[in-house]
Protein backbone atom coordinates (compact mmCIF):
# COMPACT_ATOMS: atom_id res chain seq x y z
CA UNK A 1 0.00 0.00 0.00
CA UNK A 2 1.18 3.49 -0.76
CA UNK A 3 1.63 5.56 2.41
CA UNK A 4 0.36 9.11 2.81
CA UNK A 5 3.85 10.42 3.48
CA UNK A 6 5.08 8.85 0.23
CA UNK A 7 2.31 10.58 -1.70
CA UNK A 8 3.13 13.85 0.07
CA UNK A 9 6.82 13.52 -0.71
CA UNK A 10 6.14 12.77 -4.36
CA UNK A 11 3.76 15.73 -4.55
CA UNK A 12 6.32 18.07 -2.95
CA UNK A 13 9.09 16.73 -5.17
CA UNK A 14 7.23 17.03 -8.45
CA UNK A 15 4.82 19.84 -7.58
CA UNK A 16 7.20 22.19 -5.79
CA UNK A 17 10.84 21.18 -5.75
CA UNK A 18 11.18 20.42 -9.46
CA UNK A 19 9.57 23.70 -10.60
CA UNK A 20 11.71 25.59 -8.08
CA UNK A 21 14.87 23.91 -9.37
CA UNK A 22 13.91 24.81 -12.94
CA UNK A 23 13.24 28.40 -11.88
CA UNK A 24 16.62 28.49 -10.11
CA UNK A 25 18.38 27.91 -13.44
CA UNK A 26 16.60 30.73 -15.26
CA UNK A 27 18.48 33.81 -16.42
CA UNK A 28 16.12 36.08 -14.50
CA UNK A 29 17.21 34.46 -11.23
CA UNK A 30 20.86 34.72 -12.25
CA UNK A 31 20.41 38.43 -12.90
CA UNK A 32 18.53 39.04 -9.63
CA UNK A 33 21.01 37.10 -7.49
CA UNK A 34 23.89 38.97 -9.11
CA UNK A 35 22.36 42.29 -8.02
CA UNK A 36 21.74 40.93 -4.52
CA UNK A 37 25.35 39.75 -4.26
CA UNK A 38 26.57 43.16 -5.37
CA UNK A 39 24.35 44.72 -2.68
CA UNK A 40 22.65 46.93 -5.25
CA UNK A 41 20.26 48.68 -2.89
CA UNK A 42 18.54 50.54 -5.70
CA UNK A 43 17.76 47.25 -7.39
CA UNK A 44 16.71 45.47 -4.19
CA UNK A 45 14.39 48.27 -3.09
CA UNK A 46 13.19 48.61 -6.70
CA UNK A 47 12.31 44.94 -6.82
CA UNK A 48 10.29 45.39 -3.62
CA UNK A 49 8.37 48.28 -5.15
CA UNK A 50 8.03 46.47 -8.48
CA UNK A 51 6.51 43.53 -6.61
CA UNK A 52 3.90 45.80 -5.01
CA UNK A 53 3.21 47.58 -8.31
CA UNK A 54 2.67 44.25 -10.09
CA UNK A 55 0.25 43.17 -7.39
CA UNK A 56 -1.55 46.53 -7.56
CA UNK A 57 -1.66 46.24 -11.34
CA UNK A 58 -3.24 42.81 -11.17
CA UNK A 59 -5.54 43.98 -8.36
CA UNK A 60 -6.59 46.97 -10.46
CA UNK A 61 -7.31 44.69 -13.43
CA UNK A 62 -9.42 42.41 -11.25
CA UNK A 63 -11.36 45.35 -9.79
CA UNK A 64 -12.00 46.82 -13.26
CA UNK A 65 -13.19 43.42 -14.45
CA UNK A 66 -15.43 43.09 -11.41
CA UNK A 67 -16.91 46.54 -11.99
CA UNK A 68 -17.73 45.78 -15.60
CA UNK A 69 -19.47 42.57 -14.53
CA UNK A 70 -21.14 43.97 -11.39
CA UNK A 71 -24.89 43.76 -12.03
CA UNK A 72 -25.57 46.03 -9.06
CA UNK A 73 -24.16 48.94 -11.04
CA UNK A 74 -26.50 50.34 -13.69
CA UNK A 75 -25.30 49.17 -17.07
CA UNK A 76 -24.68 52.64 -18.48
CA UNK A 77 -22.50 53.56 -15.47
CA UNK A 78 -20.35 50.46 -15.33
CA UNK A 79 -17.72 51.84 -17.67
CA UNK A 80 -17.50 54.97 -15.56
CA UNK A 81 -16.94 53.00 -12.36
CA UNK A 82 -14.37 50.85 -14.11
CA UNK A 83 -12.64 53.99 -15.38
CA UNK A 84 -12.45 55.28 -11.83
CA UNK A 85 -10.88 52.04 -10.70
CA UNK A 86 -8.38 52.34 -13.48
CA UNK A 87 -7.55 55.96 -12.50
CA UNK A 88 -7.07 54.90 -8.92
CA UNK A 89 -4.86 51.98 -9.91
CA UNK A 90 -2.84 54.16 -12.27
CA UNK A 91 -2.34 56.79 -9.59
CA UNK A 92 -1.23 54.21 -7.07
CA UNK A 93 1.30 52.73 -9.44
CA UNK A 94 2.71 56.08 -10.60
CA UNK A 95 2.92 57.46 -7.06
CA UNK A 96 4.84 54.41 -5.93
CA UNK A 97 7.27 54.75 -8.82
CA UNK A 98 7.72 58.42 -7.89
CA UNK A 99 8.33 57.51 -4.25
CA UNK A 100 10.89 54.93 -5.33
CA UNK A 101 12.70 57.41 -7.58
CA UNK A 102 12.97 59.97 -4.80
CA UNK A 103 13.20 58.21 -1.45
CA UNK A 104 15.23 55.23 -2.70
CA UNK A 105 17.69 57.48 -4.49
CA UNK A 106 21.18 56.77 -3.18
CA UNK A 107 21.99 60.44 -2.50
CA UNK A 108 18.66 61.01 -0.73
CA UNK A 109 19.22 57.90 1.35
CA UNK A 110 22.75 58.95 2.24
CA UNK A 111 21.51 62.37 3.42
CA UNK A 112 18.52 60.97 5.25
CA UNK A 113 20.52 58.34 7.07
CA UNK A 114 23.28 60.83 7.87
CA UNK A 115 20.82 63.37 9.27
CA UNK A 116 18.87 60.86 11.32
CA UNK A 117 21.64 58.59 12.56
CA UNK A 118 24.98 60.23 11.72
CA UNK A 119 25.53 61.51 15.25
CA UNK A 120 24.24 58.31 16.80
CA UNK A 121 26.87 56.28 14.97
CA UNK A 122 29.59 58.86 15.71
CA UNK A 123 28.80 58.64 19.41
CA UNK A 124 28.77 54.86 19.29
CA UNK A 125 32.18 54.84 17.61
CA UNK A 126 33.58 57.33 20.15
CA UNK A 127 32.36 55.14 22.99
CA UNK A 128 34.28 52.17 21.60
CA UNK A 129 37.42 54.17 20.81
CA UNK A 130 37.56 55.26 24.46
CA UNK A 131 37.03 51.68 25.62
CA UNK A 132 39.67 50.27 23.28
CA UNK A 133 42.24 52.92 24.21
CA UNK A 134 41.61 52.40 27.91
CA UNK A 135 42.28 48.66 27.77
CA UNK A 136 45.62 47.87 26.27
CA UNK A 137 47.56 44.61 26.05
CA UNK A 138 44.46 42.56 26.71
CA UNK A 139 44.22 40.03 23.90
CA UNK A 140 40.64 39.10 24.74
CA UNK A 141 39.44 42.62 23.95
CA UNK A 142 38.79 44.16 20.56
CA UNK A 143 41.67 45.79 18.70
CA UNK A 144 41.14 49.05 16.85
CA UNK A 145 41.32 47.28 13.50
CA UNK A 146 38.83 44.64 14.57
CA UNK A 147 36.48 47.32 15.81
CA UNK A 148 36.69 49.29 12.58
CA UNK A 149 35.92 46.20 10.51
CA UNK A 150 32.96 45.18 12.66
CA UNK A 151 31.66 48.73 12.91
CA UNK A 152 31.74 49.26 9.15
CA UNK A 153 29.82 46.04 8.67
CA UNK A 154 27.33 47.00 11.36
CA UNK A 155 26.74 50.52 10.01
CA UNK A 156 26.52 49.33 6.39
CA UNK A 157 24.04 46.62 7.32
CA UNK A 158 21.86 49.09 9.24
CA UNK A 159 21.96 51.52 6.31
CA UNK A 160 20.77 48.83 3.91
CA UNK A 161 17.88 47.79 6.13
CA UNK A 162 16.93 51.46 6.64
CA UNK A 163 16.94 52.11 2.87
CA UNK A 164 14.77 49.09 2.22
CA UNK A 165 12.30 50.01 4.96
CA UNK A 166 11.99 53.71 4.10
CA UNK A 167 11.50 52.92 0.42
CA UNK A 168 8.69 50.53 1.20
CA UNK A 169 7.07 52.81 3.76
CA UNK A 170 7.21 55.82 1.42
CA UNK A 171 5.69 53.87 -1.44
CA UNK A 172 3.12 51.68 0.23
CA UNK A 173 2.02 53.85 3.14
CA UNK A 174 2.70 57.48 2.27
CA UNK A 175 2.13 57.45 -1.49
CA UNK A 176 -0.50 54.78 -1.78
CA UNK A 177 -2.56 55.31 1.33
CA UNK A 178 -2.19 59.00 2.14
CA UNK A 179 -1.49 60.94 -1.06
CA UNK A 180 -3.43 58.93 -3.66
CA UNK A 181 -6.83 59.13 -1.95
CA UNK A 182 -6.55 62.92 -1.89
CA UNK A 183 -5.53 63.23 -5.52
CA UNK A 184 -8.07 60.65 -6.64
CA UNK A 185 -11.01 62.59 -5.17
CA UNK A 186 -10.83 65.76 -7.29
CA UNK A 187 -9.83 63.69 -10.33
CA UNK A 188 -12.84 61.47 -9.87
CA UNK A 189 -15.07 64.53 -9.53
CA UNK A 190 -13.83 65.77 -12.89
CA UNK A 191 -14.42 62.36 -14.43
CA UNK A 192 -17.96 62.41 -13.08
CA UNK A 193 -18.68 65.83 -14.65
CA UNK A 194 -17.29 64.58 -17.95
CA UNK A 195 -19.41 61.42 -17.78
CA UNK A 196 -22.56 63.40 -16.89
CA UNK A 197 -22.03 65.69 -19.88
CA UNK A 198 -21.51 62.69 -22.12
CA UNK A 199 -24.65 61.02 -20.74
CA UNK A 200 -26.83 64.11 -21.22
CA UNK A 201 -25.67 64.41 -24.85
CA UNK A 202 -26.58 60.77 -25.44
CA UNK A 203 -30.01 61.33 -23.81
CA UNK A 204 -30.72 64.26 -26.17
CA UNK A 205 -29.80 62.17 -29.20
CA UNK A 206 -32.03 59.34 -27.93
CA UNK A 207 -35.00 61.71 -27.60
Amino acid at each position, binding site marked *: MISVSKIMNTTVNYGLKKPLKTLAKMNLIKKVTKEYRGNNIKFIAGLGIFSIILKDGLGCYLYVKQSLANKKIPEDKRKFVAALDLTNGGLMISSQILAFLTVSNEKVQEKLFGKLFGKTFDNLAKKFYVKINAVKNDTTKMTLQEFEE*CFKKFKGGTKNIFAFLTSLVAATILAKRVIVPFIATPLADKAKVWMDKKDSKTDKVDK
Partner: protein
Amino acid sequence: MNVERVSFKGNAAGTMSGEFSYYAKKFLREKKFEKEIAAEAPKIIQFIRKFGVLTGEVPNILINAIGTGLVAPFFIKYNFLSKSDSDTRTYSALRQPVSAILAVLMQGGLVLPFDRLMNNMSNKGEWDGHAFNKTGFQDLKYIEKIIKKQNPNLTKAEIKELAKAKQLEQLITMINHANNNNFVGYILDGKKVKLSKNQLKALMRETLDDLSKKHPDIAKNIESLKHNISKGISIKEFSQKIGKISKETDFAYELIQKHIENVAKNIKGFRAIVGLVVSLSILPVSCAALNWLYPRFMDKFFPSLSKKKKDNTNLLKNIQADTFNGKTKEVSQ
Protein backbone atom coordinates in the same frame (compact mmCIF):
# COMPACT_ATOMS: atom_id res chain seq x y z
CA MET B 1 17.63 13.63 7.49
CA ASN B 2 21.21 12.57 7.47
CA VAL B 3 23.32 13.46 10.47
CA GLU B 4 26.54 12.88 8.50
CA ARG B 5 25.77 16.11 6.75
CA VAL B 6 26.58 18.02 9.88
CA SER B 7 29.43 15.79 10.95
CA PHE B 8 33.00 16.86 10.76
CA LYS B 9 34.71 14.48 8.36
CA GLY B 10 37.39 14.33 5.73
CA ASN B 11 40.93 15.62 5.70
CA ALA B 12 40.12 18.68 7.78
CA ALA B 13 40.18 16.52 10.91
CA GLY B 14 43.88 16.00 10.48
CA THR B 15 44.64 19.70 10.44
CA MET B 16 42.48 20.61 13.39
CA SER B 17 45.01 21.53 16.04
CA GLY B 18 46.84 24.70 14.96
CA GLU B 19 44.66 26.02 12.15
CA PHE B 20 41.45 25.04 13.90
CA SER B 21 42.20 27.10 16.96
CA TYR B 22 43.38 30.05 14.85
CA TYR B 23 40.28 30.18 12.63
CA ALA B 24 37.92 29.28 15.46
CA LYS B 25 39.29 32.11 17.57
CA LYS B 26 39.08 34.55 14.68
CA PHE B 27 35.50 33.58 13.85
CA LEU B 28 34.33 33.61 17.47
CA ARG B 29 36.03 36.95 18.15
CA GLU B 30 34.25 38.53 15.16
CA LYS B 31 30.89 37.19 16.27
CA LYS B 32 31.52 38.36 19.83
CA PHE B 33 32.49 41.87 18.76
CA GLU B 34 29.55 42.15 16.39
CA LYS B 35 27.30 41.34 19.33
CA GLU B 36 29.14 43.83 21.56
CA ILE B 37 28.58 46.66 19.08
CA ALA B 38 24.93 45.72 18.54
CA ALA B 39 24.34 45.61 22.30
CA GLU B 40 25.76 49.12 22.78
CA ALA B 41 23.77 50.63 19.90
CA PRO B 42 20.74 52.81 20.76
CA LYS B 43 17.35 51.11 20.82
CA ILE B 44 16.19 52.74 17.58
CA ILE B 45 19.13 51.17 15.72
CA GLN B 46 18.43 47.80 17.33
CA PHE B 47 14.79 48.15 16.28
CA ILE B 48 15.69 48.89 12.65
CA ARG B 49 18.09 45.93 12.56
CA LYS B 50 15.33 43.59 13.65
CA PHE B 51 13.77 44.05 10.21
CA GLY B 52 16.92 42.66 8.61
CA VAL B 53 15.71 39.18 9.53
CA LEU B 54 12.70 39.65 7.28
CA THR B 55 13.75 38.88 3.77
CA GLY B 56 12.00 38.27 0.49
CA GLU B 57 8.35 38.95 0.00
CA VAL B 58 7.24 38.83 3.65
CA PRO B 59 8.23 42.44 4.57
CA ASN B 60 6.47 43.68 1.41
CA ILE B 61 3.28 41.93 2.49
CA LEU B 62 3.58 43.18 6.08
CA ILE B 63 4.29 46.83 5.29
CA ASN B 64 1.62 46.89 2.62
CA ALA B 65 -0.80 45.43 5.17
CA ILE B 66 0.12 48.10 7.74
CA GLY B 67 -0.67 50.76 5.12
CA THR B 68 -3.93 49.12 4.12
CA GLY B 69 -5.10 48.09 7.55
CA LEU B 70 -3.98 50.92 9.80
CA VAL B 71 -3.27 54.04 7.72
CA ALA B 72 -5.82 53.85 4.89
CA PRO B 73 -8.94 53.61 7.14
CA PHE B 74 -7.98 56.85 8.89
CA PHE B 75 -7.54 58.76 5.62
CA ILE B 76 -10.74 57.34 4.18
CA LYS B 77 -12.82 58.14 7.22
CA TYR B 78 -11.44 61.67 7.66
CA ASN B 79 -10.94 62.66 4.01
CA PHE B 80 -12.27 66.23 4.03
CA LEU B 81 -12.29 66.32 0.23
CA SER B 82 -14.73 63.43 -0.01
CA LYS B 83 -18.34 64.34 -0.72
CA SER B 84 -19.77 61.04 0.47
CA ASP B 85 -21.54 60.76 3.83
CA SER B 86 -19.86 59.64 7.03
CA ASP B 87 -21.46 56.17 7.09
CA THR B 88 -20.35 55.40 3.56
CA ARG B 89 -16.83 56.50 4.47
CA THR B 90 -16.86 54.29 7.58
CA TYR B 91 -18.17 51.40 5.51
CA SER B 92 -15.33 51.85 3.03
CA ALA B 93 -12.74 52.40 5.78
CA LEU B 94 -13.63 49.19 7.58
CA ARG B 95 -13.03 47.20 4.45
CA GLN B 96 -9.31 48.00 4.59
CA PRO B 97 -8.38 46.10 7.80
CA VAL B 98 -10.34 43.07 6.57
CA SER B 99 -8.49 43.27 3.27
CA ALA B 100 -5.13 43.60 5.10
CA ILE B 101 -5.78 40.61 7.38
CA LEU B 102 -6.80 38.48 4.40
CA ALA B 103 -3.66 39.53 2.50
CA VAL B 104 -1.37 38.63 5.42
CA LEU B 105 -3.13 35.32 6.04
CA MET B 106 -3.38 34.22 2.43
CA GLN B 107 -0.24 35.68 0.88
CA GLY B 108 1.94 35.28 3.98
CA GLY B 109 0.45 31.87 4.67
CA LEU B 110 1.64 30.67 1.32
CA VAL B 111 4.93 32.56 1.04
CA LEU B 112 6.27 31.43 4.43
CA PRO B 113 6.01 27.66 3.75
CA PHE B 114 7.76 28.29 0.43
CA ASP B 115 10.54 30.14 2.27
CA ARG B 116 10.86 27.23 4.70
CA LEU B 117 10.93 24.65 1.91
CA MET B 118 13.61 26.56 0.02
CA ASN B 119 15.69 26.96 3.15
CA ASN B 120 15.49 23.26 3.89
CA MET B 121 16.52 22.47 0.33
CA SER B 122 19.53 24.77 0.80
CA ASN B 123 20.63 23.13 4.03
CA LYS B 124 20.18 19.64 2.63
CA GLY B 125 22.02 20.52 -0.58
CA GLU B 126 19.11 19.72 -2.87
CA TRP B 127 19.73 22.50 -5.37
CA ASP B 128 21.81 21.81 -8.44
CA GLY B 129 25.18 23.50 -8.11
CA HIS B 130 26.49 25.69 -5.33
CA ALA B 131 24.62 28.98 -5.72
CA PHE B 132 21.82 28.19 -3.25
CA ASN B 133 23.40 25.37 -1.26
CA LYS B 134 24.32 25.90 2.36
CA THR B 135 25.58 22.35 2.88
CA GLY B 136 29.12 23.54 3.54
CA PHE B 137 27.99 25.96 6.25
CA GLN B 138 24.50 25.14 7.44
CA ASP B 139 22.11 27.32 9.43
CA LEU B 140 22.41 26.96 13.20
CA LYS B 141 18.71 26.22 13.52
CA TYR B 142 18.92 23.44 10.96
CA ILE B 143 21.90 21.85 12.70
CA GLU B 144 20.07 22.13 16.03
CA LYS B 145 17.07 20.33 14.53
CA ILE B 146 19.20 17.44 13.33
CA ILE B 147 21.11 17.12 16.59
CA LYS B 148 17.83 17.12 18.50
CA LYS B 149 16.48 14.36 16.29
CA GLN B 150 19.57 12.24 16.75
CA ASN B 151 19.96 12.97 20.47
CA PRO B 152 16.51 13.53 21.98
CA ASN B 153 17.89 13.39 25.53
CA LEU B 154 20.10 16.45 25.21
CA THR B 155 19.04 19.71 26.83
CA LYS B 156 18.32 22.84 24.80
CA ALA B 157 21.53 24.49 25.98
CA GLU B 158 23.58 21.40 25.09
CA ILE B 159 22.01 21.26 21.62
CA LYS B 160 22.79 24.93 21.06
CA GLU B 161 26.40 24.53 22.10
CA LEU B 162 26.85 21.43 19.96
CA ALA B 163 25.28 23.15 16.98
CA LYS B 164 27.63 26.12 17.30
CA ALA B 165 30.59 23.76 17.45
CA LYS B 166 29.39 21.85 14.38
CA GLN B 167 28.90 25.04 12.43
CA LEU B 168 32.38 26.17 13.34
CA GLU B 169 33.79 22.83 12.21
CA GLN B 170 32.02 23.23 8.89
CA LEU B 171 33.55 26.66 8.43
CA ILE B 172 37.03 25.40 9.19
CA THR B 173 36.56 22.41 6.89
CA MET B 174 35.73 24.84 4.08
CA ILE B 175 38.75 27.02 4.85
CA ASN B 176 41.02 23.97 4.90
CA HIS B 177 39.63 22.75 1.60
CA ALA B 178 40.36 26.18 0.15
CA ASN B 179 43.90 26.31 1.54
CA ASN B 180 44.91 22.71 0.95
CA ASN B 181 42.98 21.73 -2.17
CA ASN B 182 42.25 25.10 -3.82
CA PHE B 183 38.62 24.03 -3.56
CA VAL B 184 35.63 26.17 -2.60
CA GLY B 185 32.49 24.18 -2.00
CA TYR B 186 31.61 21.05 -0.07
CA ILE B 187 31.43 17.30 -0.34
CA LEU B 188 27.95 15.77 -0.18
CA ASP B 189 27.50 11.99 -0.18
CA GLY B 190 30.96 11.62 -1.68
CA LYS B 191 30.17 14.04 -4.49
CA LYS B 192 32.15 17.26 -4.81
CA VAL B 193 30.08 20.38 -5.29
CA LYS B 194 32.46 23.17 -6.08
CA LEU B 195 32.91 26.49 -7.80
CA SER B 196 34.18 26.37 -11.37
CA LYS B 197 37.55 27.95 -12.20
CA ASN B 198 35.92 31.14 -13.45
CA GLN B 199 33.57 31.33 -10.48
CA LEU B 200 36.51 30.91 -8.14
CA LYS B 201 38.37 33.71 -9.90
CA ALA B 202 35.33 35.97 -9.58
CA LEU B 203 35.08 35.14 -5.88
CA MET B 204 38.77 35.96 -5.41
CA ARG B 205 38.24 39.34 -7.09
CA GLU B 206 35.20 40.10 -4.92
CA THR B 207 37.13 39.14 -1.79
CA LEU B 208 39.98 41.46 -2.75
CA ASP B 209 37.53 44.29 -3.40
CA ASP B 210 36.07 43.78 0.05
CA LEU B 211 39.51 43.70 1.63
CA SER B 212 40.41 46.98 -0.11
CA LYS B 213 37.31 48.57 1.36
CA LYS B 214 38.05 47.16 4.80
CA HIS B 215 41.67 48.30 4.79
CA PRO B 216 41.88 51.53 2.79
CA ASP B 217 45.46 52.08 4.04
CA ILE B 218 46.71 49.03 2.12
CA ALA B 219 44.11 49.12 -0.66
CA LYS B 220 46.70 49.98 -3.32
CA ASN B 221 48.87 47.00 -2.38
CA ILE B 222 45.85 44.71 -2.46
CA GLU B 223 44.78 46.05 -5.85
CA SER B 224 48.25 45.41 -7.24
CA LEU B 225 47.79 41.70 -6.51
CA LYS B 226 44.70 41.40 -8.68
CA HIS B 227 46.60 40.52 -11.85
CA ASN B 228 47.70 37.26 -10.19
CA ILE B 229 44.12 35.97 -10.32
CA SER B 230 44.10 35.61 -14.10
CA LYS B 231 47.43 33.78 -13.87
CA GLY B 232 45.59 31.04 -11.99
CA ILE B 233 47.45 31.44 -8.71
CA SER B 234 46.14 29.17 -5.92
CA ILE B 235 44.29 30.34 -2.81
CA LYS B 236 47.19 29.25 -0.60
CA GLU B 237 49.71 31.23 -2.63
CA PHE B 238 47.40 34.21 -2.53
CA SER B 239 47.08 33.89 1.24
CA GLN B 240 50.86 34.08 1.51
CA LYS B 241 51.00 37.19 -0.69
CA ILE B 242 48.26 38.92 1.31
CA GLY B 243 49.93 37.84 4.55
CA LYS B 244 53.05 39.77 3.49
CA ILE B 245 50.99 42.96 3.13
CA SER B 246 48.87 42.56 6.25
CA LYS B 247 49.70 39.98 8.90
CA GLU B 248 46.23 40.09 10.48
CA THR B 249 44.46 39.36 7.20
CA ASP B 250 43.85 35.74 6.23
CA PHE B 251 42.81 35.45 2.61
CA ALA B 252 41.32 31.93 2.76
CA TYR B 253 39.23 32.92 5.77
CA GLU B 254 37.96 36.06 4.04
CA LEU B 255 37.31 34.15 0.81
CA ILE B 256 35.14 31.53 2.52
CA GLN B 257 33.28 34.20 4.48
CA LYS B 258 32.57 35.96 1.19
CA HIS B 259 31.35 32.72 -0.38
CA ILE B 260 28.98 32.08 2.54
CA GLU B 261 27.73 35.67 2.29
CA ASN B 262 27.20 35.27 -1.47
CA VAL B 263 25.13 32.10 -1.02
CA ALA B 264 22.98 33.85 1.60
CA LYS B 265 22.43 36.79 -0.78
CA ASN B 266 21.62 34.47 -3.69
CA ILE B 267 18.94 32.83 -1.59
CA LYS B 268 17.55 36.24 -0.57
CA GLY B 269 17.20 37.29 -4.21
CA PHE B 270 15.71 33.98 -5.27
CA ARG B 271 13.19 34.09 -2.43
CA ALA B 272 12.12 37.60 -3.45
CA ILE B 273 11.17 36.35 -6.92
CA VAL B 274 9.48 33.17 -5.68
CA GLY B 275 7.55 35.24 -3.13
CA LEU B 276 6.39 37.59 -5.86
CA VAL B 277 5.21 34.72 -8.08
CA VAL B 278 3.40 33.06 -5.18
CA SER B 279 1.75 36.33 -4.06
CA LEU B 280 0.61 37.12 -7.58
CA SER B 281 -0.91 33.69 -8.04
CA ILE B 282 -2.89 33.93 -4.79
CA LEU B 283 -4.14 37.49 -5.49
CA PRO B 284 -7.29 36.53 -7.50
CA VAL B 285 -8.23 34.13 -4.70
CA SER B 286 -7.75 36.77 -1.97
CA CYS B 287 -9.75 39.32 -4.03
CA ALA B 288 -12.62 36.85 -4.41
CA ALA B 289 -12.37 35.95 -0.72
CA LEU B 290 -12.65 39.62 0.23
CA ASN B 291 -15.71 40.07 -1.93
CA TRP B 292 -17.33 37.08 -0.29
CA LEU B 293 -16.26 37.82 3.27
CA TYR B 294 -16.70 41.56 3.61
CA PRO B 295 -20.50 41.88 3.20
CA ARG B 296 -20.96 38.98 5.61
CA PHE B 297 -18.54 40.53 8.09
CA MET B 298 -20.40 43.86 7.95
CA ASP B 299 -23.80 42.19 8.28
CA LYS B 300 -22.63 40.36 11.36
CA PHE B 301 -20.63 43.05 13.20
CA PHE B 302 -21.91 46.36 11.80
CA PRO B 303 -25.51 45.62 10.75
CA SER B 304 -26.59 49.26 10.96
CA LEU B 305 -23.85 50.39 8.59
CA SER B 306 -24.45 47.45 6.33
CA LYS B 307 -28.21 48.14 6.13
CA LYS B 308 -27.72 51.82 5.41
CA LYS B 309 -25.36 50.90 2.67
CA LYS B 310 -27.86 48.50 1.13
CA ASP B 311 -30.70 50.97 1.46
CA ASN B 312 -28.83 53.74 -0.20
CA THR B 313 -30.63 54.45 -3.41
CA ASN B 314 -27.82 56.43 -4.88
CA LEU B 315 -25.64 53.44 -5.56
CA LEU B 316 -23.27 55.14 -7.90
CA LYS B 317 -22.49 57.81 -5.34
CA ASN B 318 -21.43 55.17 -2.88
CA ILE B 319 -19.37 53.27 -5.38
CA GLN B 320 -17.69 56.48 -6.38
CA ALA B 321 -16.97 57.39 -2.77
CA ASP B 322 -15.48 53.98 -2.17
CA THR B 323 -13.31 54.24 -5.20
CA PHE B 324 -12.18 57.80 -4.39
CA ASN B 325 -11.03 56.69 -1.00
CA GLY B 326 -8.46 54.16 -2.01
CA LYS B 327 -8.64 50.74 -3.55
CA THR B 328 -12.13 49.94 -2.36
CA LYS B 329 -15.07 48.66 -4.33
CA GLU B 330 -18.76 48.17 -4.09
CA VAL B 331 -19.11 44.60 -2.92
CA SER B 332 -21.41 42.18 -4.56
CA GLN B 333 -23.29 39.80 -2.35
